[in-house]
């Protein structure tokens, strides 16, 4: 186990699958089975490797010289934060493959080849420890996703797919510029610096001007915010989600959005604490808008899948809120939300998918009384929706509680600096309370949705619908099981990543305390770029 390059196996095994699939005979049964076994093996391996490296007591890392003259090396590694997301990925890929049994009919070879390429890219993003490798995998994910949406999607699939690609690429532009800028700064300080995370993470601590830090932060952040998605960059998501086939929606909501939040946490908040402190007020403000506004939009949707898509955006707002709290609780809450949102949103999209394969409509107005004809689906829908609206003892509750708790405790900002020296008198506490409205709205649209779809009289045309197939039951049951397990034993999940994530929040408490100390007594501290430049005069 010690000698095995476990991380590289995880990254490249799906790619090998993708190369094998096109050469298999064109039989549906065989292709489904191959992919199920393959992704099952991947899931089992990821759990085994994770247990193995935990037992070994040191984080897994693999290194290979690649382009030394440019400071680029193949460098992958995994701490527990990465492992949690890797296992979430392999699990959801398995679920997506199982969900494909009923929802994907045509061109299966290409379909599975693309799914596995996508898996490789996502795992690469979570495991990369070199910024070039990170960027490479980040871009690699684009084309498979484009094809998955544009071939197997709904009526407006081609528009949705190209929109997704162009939005993501637009973000990558600024990410790449920031990556190169950061590397330039690192190289000027230390000519032997490479693209390794270890070499770049400390750059901001070397007395880099806050203005530059903010630019680099924003460059990286743009790409992640589009992926998250953050208002106002979220408009690609409802299109992509609605048009994508069910398994792809599950992967999109379950994992792809997590690439954005993961990048934010590790690269933006982890590497540029000063910039993060300056920008936190705005991020929390936008996060609040994310939560409340998109929840409101979800309330107004007539299309079931669109409703779920907006609810997904709304819940990703909690990640922003948690990160903006700039403390250990908030960060932990954000990561917890990534995990539970991954499970819950995948579950919700699976519910929508099972309904759609039967009715071929997504209009809520055309549905009704499904509780009577589809009791199994109804049961799971109820459970997952309850988890989504944050019912205690289910997966969504601990995450949202942690985020709210962290944000409420936070002293990240009391006022938001605004144009021309004015301030918005919104503290993070006020914004937290406002975002709680989002939870209320969430309960409203989810319950109302359940009522309209599953209760009431059965429409005559739906009276002979068949209840969930075994594969669907399996997917829903597996997801629900984890949602309940996470809700019942939140400690089991949070204890995995707690140490690393808390360490990331370490620099913030001291810095914020100092900033508060610097403000004269009786005044409200205003944290802006100025607060740092005052200190710099002394230290340089």
């Amino acid at each position: 186990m010690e000698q095995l390059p476990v991380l590289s196996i995880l990254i490249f095994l799906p790619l090998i699958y993708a190369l094998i699939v096109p050469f298999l005979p064109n039989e549906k049964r065989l292709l489904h089975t191959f992919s199920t076994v393959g992704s099952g093996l991947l899931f089992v391996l990821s759990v085994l490797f994770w247990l193995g490296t935990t037992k070994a007591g040191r984080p897994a890392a693999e290194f290979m010289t690649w382009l030394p003259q440019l400071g680029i090396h193949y460098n992958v590694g995994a701490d527990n934060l990465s492992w949690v997301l890797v296992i979430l990925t392999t699990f959801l890929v398995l679920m997506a493959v199982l969900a494909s049994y009923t929802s994907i009919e045509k061109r299966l070879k290409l379909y599975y080849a693309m799914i596995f390429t996508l898996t490789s890219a996502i795992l690469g993003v979570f495991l990369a420890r070199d910024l070039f490798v990170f960027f490479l995998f980040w871009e690699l994910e684009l084309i498979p996703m484009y094809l998955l949406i544009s071939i197997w999607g709904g009526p407006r699939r081609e528009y949705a797919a190209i929109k997704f690609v162009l939005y993501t690429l637009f973000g990558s532009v600024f990410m790449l510029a920031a990556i190169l800028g950061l590397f330039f700064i690192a190289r000027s300080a230390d000519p032997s610096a490479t693209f390794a995370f270890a070499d770049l993470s400390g750059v901001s601590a070397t007395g880099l001007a806050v203005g530059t830090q903010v630019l680099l932060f924003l460059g990286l952040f743009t790409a992640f915010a589009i992926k998250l998605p953050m208002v106002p960059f979220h408009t690609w998501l409802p299109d992509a989600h609605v048009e994508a086939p069910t398994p792809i929606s599950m992967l999109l909501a379950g994992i792809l959005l997590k690439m954005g939040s993961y990048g934010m946490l590790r690269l933006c908040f982890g590497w540029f604490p000063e910039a993060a402190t300056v920008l936190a007020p705005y991020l929390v403000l936008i996060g609040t808008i994310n939560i409340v506004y998109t929840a409101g939009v979800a309330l107004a949707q007539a299309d079931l899948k669109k409703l779920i898509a907006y609810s997904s955006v709304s819940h990703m707002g909690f990640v922003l809120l948690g990160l903006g709290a700039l403390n250990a609780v908030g960060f932990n809450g954000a990561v917890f939300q990534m995990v539970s949102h991954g499970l819950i949103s995948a579950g919700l999209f699976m519910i929508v998918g099972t309904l759609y394969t039967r009715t071929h409509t997504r209009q809520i107005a055309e549905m009704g009384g499904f509780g009577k004809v589809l009791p199994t689906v109804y049961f799971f829908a109820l459970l997952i929706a309850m988890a989504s609206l944050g019912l205690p003892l289910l997966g969504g509750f601990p995450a949202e509680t942690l985020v709210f708790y962290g944000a409420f405790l936070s002293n990240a900002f009391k006022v938001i600096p605004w144009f021309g020296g004015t301030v918005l008198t919104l503290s993070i506490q006020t914004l937290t309370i406002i975002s709680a409205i989002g939870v209320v709205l969430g309960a409203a649209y989810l319950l109302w949705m359940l009522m309209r779809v599953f209760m009431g009289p059965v429409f005559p045309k739906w009276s002979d619908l068949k209840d969930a197939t075994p594969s669907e039951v399996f997917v829903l049951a597996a997801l629900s099981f984890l949602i309940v397990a996470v809700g019942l034993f939140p400690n089991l999940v949070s204890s995995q990543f707690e140490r690393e994530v808390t360490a990331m929040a370490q620099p913030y408490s001291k810095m914020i305390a100092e900033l508060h100390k610097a403000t004269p007594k009786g005044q409200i501290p205003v944290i802006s770029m100025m607060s740092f430049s005052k200190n710099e005069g002394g230290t340089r």
Partner: protein
Amino acid sequence: MPETMAMNVIGQKDMLFILPEIILTVGLLAILCLTMMTHKKTRHENAGLMQVSLVFVLGSLAALIWQFAQQPSMEPETMMFGALRADLFSYVMRAMLLAGLGITVAISHAFLERNTKIIGDFYALVMGATLGGMVLSAANDLAAVFIGLETLSITSYVLAGYLRRTTRSAEASFKYLVYGGMGTAIFLFGLSLVYGLSGSTNFSDIATALAAYQGVMHPTLLLMVIMVFAALAFKLSIAPFHMWAPDVYEGAPTPVSAFLSVVSKTAAFAVTIRLLMVIFPGFPAWAELWTILAVLSMTIGNFVALKQRNVKRLLAYSTVAHAGYMLTGLVVGSSAGVGSIVYYLMTYLFMNLGAFACVIYFGILTGSDDIESYRGMVQKRPGLVLAFSIFLLSLAGIPITAGFFAKFFLFQAVIMSNPAYTWLVIVALLNSTVSLAYYINIIRLMVVKEPSDAVNAIPAHTSTPWALGSALTISVAATLLLGVFASQFLNYSTESVKQLVQERPVVVSQGLKR
């Protein structure tokens, strides 16, 4: 002077240096003779002509590599009375030209056999054009530059009109001739000013003489720089001097478009880099001029390409855009920046020739160069569609293709050389985002859409001509592997440019600091 020996007689060394050119010339003559001897123009004879040309091209490439392997230290040396310069740069560029020629020969046969009866002349002409390009990329003297350029240009005019019975081809040839003649005239005028100011045609003498004008805004000097640059921009088909390219590429036979867009462009870049690095480093208006041209070229190229329906026209605009990206390396002018251009050209060679090879193949299958006619092609020719997709994604800069690496290295070099040009990199990246829209549109039509009637009519299995097939395989392999195994290629590219820069260290450092 150590050069006096070489100045007096053509020695064995000189002959060995130009051995690849000699082999190519012999090949050219042999093909002409064989064409005259084969009257019947049977399939068999035609294939023989192609095979003979390939043998000579590969022989020339082998001679080049052999020569290169003989000199591990690679000390730059002038050859042929100082007209040529044997340095790493000349070897790298000539190898690329020969590789490009080899692929062109291999992909053109199937096309020619379908469209014309006269096949041998084509090979003789492309070999002649490449010969000009090879002289151009080793040139160390204005006279050699001009001879090389004219050999390349005049054969290219003829090639563009190769299908003389087709109106479009004849039109392309005429347009190219008129525009090209104009470009040459301007270039020659610029060179005469160079000669007038420096009193020499030898590069190193010119460089020494012109160094005296450092920082002086002399009107003649400015006129000279503008004229030389405009002519080079024309040869590189950089906006706003790109007008000829789409018309010529669309009208010319597809293999000729492929040749012009890759081999001819590589040679033009070779002479541009050499002139700029050796003669004009640190001239005032240089960076500013190239910046404007770079931005114009990539923006116009990409946005106009969005609207194209003919795939050859689309690729023409795409080459305009790519020339724009590459110019960013010239803007910073550092050896890393310019070295990345050389690496970019290596990847560009395979991906663009590969894309044209696919266009040729599709043209044979569907009889059309209309993008719409590729609709649903994946159901008939999955392998070919995969290859074309790889080339297009590489052109768009999507990993793990070589195009991604080339763009990354280029932009990294630009920022590392001068972070003030970060904005230029952002403009280039935004442009490549735009470019993905039209590249992916072709993939969308081929993969996502249901087959068109033209595609449905294609027989399920026809065997691929071996030359076209192997050229495609080589291009796909290079496009996939050149990036992942970039280390050595990148070393050659950067080192080759470093040798050019080292010639005048003082001036160069001033040029870089600005």
